[in-house]
């Protein structure tokens, strides 16, 4: 896991813990009949932080998956080309070439 991913996971965990604590405070305010709008805004903000962290993690995972797929495709292409190249080299060596004959010499003269 990259440092960026570790930071994002920490950010998400922190926001989730703060969210839990804010929900507790919201319950207290609701029971006490106080103004809950500030805590609700705080909870919304924490939700947004968790969502944005998860979205960034998903983007990183998608990019990693793309990188992996293109690396596999590139490597597969190269290994297949190597194998086919070796086969062709053997066939080229064994395929009958045009023989240098008496007639060819006469033709050149």
């Amino acid at each position, binding site marked *: 896991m990259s440092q960026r991913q570790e930071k994002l996971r920490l950010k998400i965990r922190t926001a989730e813990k703060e969210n839990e604590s804010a929900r507790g405070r919201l319950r207290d305010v609701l029971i006490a009949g106080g103004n809950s709008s500030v805590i609700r805004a705080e909870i919304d903000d924490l939700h947004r932080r968790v969502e944005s962290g998860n979205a960034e993690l998903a983007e990183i995972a998608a990019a990693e998956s793309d990188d992996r797929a293109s*690396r*596999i495709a590139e*490597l597969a292409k190269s290994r*297949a080309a190597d194998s086919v190249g070796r086969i062709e080299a053997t*066939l080229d060596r064994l395929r009958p070439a045009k023989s240098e004959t008496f007639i060819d010499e006469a033709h050149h003269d």
Partner: protein
Amino acid sequence: MRLTMTNQITNAAAALAESKVNAESAAVVLKAANESVTEVREKLDALENERAGIVAARKDGDKRDGADGARLAEIAADSEGLSEIFQERQAVQSAAASEFGRLSQAVTAAEAMLSNASDHALIVDLKVIATELDAKLLATVVEITAVAKRVGSSRAVWLPSSLLANRLRSLDMEGQAR
């Protein structure tokens, strides 16, 4: 047939590429696990060196105003804590090494599959060339015999090498035995 062989090579190469990338990822994990074990090992070694230094100094009469006992207790506690971390990391390292070994074996197997697919494709193509050479050599020998007869030669004017003749004879016997 040729298309099938090419597909087999392509598929084997794709399987090999995937196994190689998996093994590369496992190698990165194993390297990190090795480094994390070394990190704790070095800290444990440093504590052990310090402990041995204090013990040696005390043997030489250096008592450091009675501070050694507290430091030795600290070292023992830290060593105990670090030993637990060391064991945890060793377990992670062992799992990573085992996973790397498994994936390396998969790479070896995939290499063998690709090599096998290439060899099968090569055989298909070599048979085409051998059949072509067979027909051309036969036609050439027939033509040589006819021309030699026309010029009045009663003896063969061309002979195959002993190696070729023996090899063809052996292959012919094998063919008849089938």
